[in-house]
């Protein structure tokens, strides 16, 4: 019997299992979770012959090292980084065969933040509410990987893609987020609304899977007080009392009491997953279609 499993030799700074998340349970307080850079997760899956929703590994800055117990095909994408098998360089962003017992090392990113590692057959940990994603806000799904974790793998459904390399967007030098104002833009002064869409922010090192935190001009409220808790969407730009916008990412809370000044258009969120601390951020107002 083939032992379809992956041994985590070096877990890296923060490596989690991610798929397309568990939407549909927000009314129970369950965040959607899922890969922050969904298109890249789908791409690396396609490269190894997996369906787009198979579970992959999401790494943070310094990659991870893995040893498959049986031969597998892997593909690494997202933030560009060196990849080696048994110390020999192999292509990034393309399907790579890793023999049983060989050491696959995903190195520190050259730019960007998050790497995505698809393995043929997909990571087959037990799903929770239909998803294998690790949710760092609520603790649902598998814990972040630690050295020595053994991950079960599924059975490959299709052969790997026959490509040498697939095009991927470069991590943003400047993060431009198109936003639609509201629903609580009336909680801010005209000066704050102007500053929000005209000044430049920077990605804060306190950013995580829950939210992209920013540093920059503080946004002054037009009214004091608290908003009764209300439902929150992916991409909501919430402004806590310190006045600095936070963009809600996949592990965001399902309800919140700080006013949402605007919502980022979903196609712009994957780039937010790859914006390193210090990256300039601009919020650009758009009209509703």
């Amino acid at each position, binding site marked *: 019997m083939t032992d379809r499993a992956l041994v985590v030799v070096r877990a890296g700074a923060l490596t989690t299992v991610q798929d397309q998340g568990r939407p549909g349970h927000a009314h129970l*307080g369950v965040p959607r979770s899922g890969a922050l850079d969904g298109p890249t997760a789908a791409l690396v899956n396609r490269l190894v012959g997996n369906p787009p929703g198979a579970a992959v590994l999401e790494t943070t800055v310094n990659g991870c090292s893995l040893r498959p117990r049986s031969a597998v095909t892997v593909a690494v994408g997202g933030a560009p980084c060196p990849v080696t098998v048994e110390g020999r360089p192999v292509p990034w962003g393309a399907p790579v065969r890793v023999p049983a017992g060989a050491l696959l090392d995903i190195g520190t990113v050259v730019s960007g933040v998050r790497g995505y590692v698809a393995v043929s057959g997909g990571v087959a940990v037990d799903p929770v*509410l239909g998803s294998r994603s690790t949710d760092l806000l*609520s603790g649902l799904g598998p814990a972040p990987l630690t050295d020595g974790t053994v991950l079960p793998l599924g059975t490959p459904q299709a052969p790997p893609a026959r490509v040498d390399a697939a095009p991927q967007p470069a991590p943003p030098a400047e993060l431009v987020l198109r936003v639609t104002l509201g629903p609580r833009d009336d909680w801010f002064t005209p000066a704050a609304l102007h500053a929000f869409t005209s000044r430049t922010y920077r990605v804060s090192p306190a950013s995580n899977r829950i939210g992209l935190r920013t540093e920059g001009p503080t946004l002054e409220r037009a009214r004091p007080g608290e908003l009764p808790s209300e*439902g929150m969407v992916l991409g909501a730009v919430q402004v806590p009392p310190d006045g600095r916008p936070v963009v809600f990412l996949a592990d965001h809370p399902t309800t919140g009491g700080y006013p949402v000044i605007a919502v980022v258009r*979903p196609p712009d969120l994957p780039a937010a997953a790859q914006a390193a601390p210090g990256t300039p951020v601009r919020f650009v107002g758009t009209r509703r279609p």
Partner: protein
Amino acid sequence: MRVLPVGDGALLVEAASGEEARALHAELLRRRAEGTLTAREIVPAARTVLLDGVDDPARLTAELTAAEIPPAPPRARDVVEIPVRYDGPDLADVAAHWDVDTREVARIHAGTEFSVAFCGFAPGFGYLTGLPRHYDVPRRATPRTAVPAGAVALAGPYTGVYPRSSPGGWQLIGSTDTVLWDHARVPAALLSPGTRVRFVPVGRS
């Protein structure tokens, strides 16, 4: 009914009161069940219902703005009973806020029928309403870094039970062994919006 756009695929519907929000939530669930409303998420909250993943926000906005929302249907018949020890570290503070003694806090709390207004904060955490407004209590000035799982707590007009250990700023009045969330169970959440709840006092263990 005021309907606010939220990005390009969601709507936030504002109600005038918690009761109207409950009626609106029930009506939106009914419409989704009968197939006249498409929404990936219907998230009730204190005074609003969020519709996320809707097909045609502009059309739905017009429809909801003009809609007559029928009164909320009667609440579910079944009452979830949660055994509780009224032994929380903030019981005396709450008693002081209510201007009663600690036994009376337990008596009032256990004598109230609650219902889940909405969920949030953590999977399985319900915001329970039922106490009259003059029993509102503020959050603690300094939140605790760790509130144990099963803590029964008050803040503002709400009662809640912490499904797992987490930081928290609510006033802790008691504790329960009831499991609020177990993803291996169906349903995973003991409490969901609309669930009726009663706290049953038990002796200190």
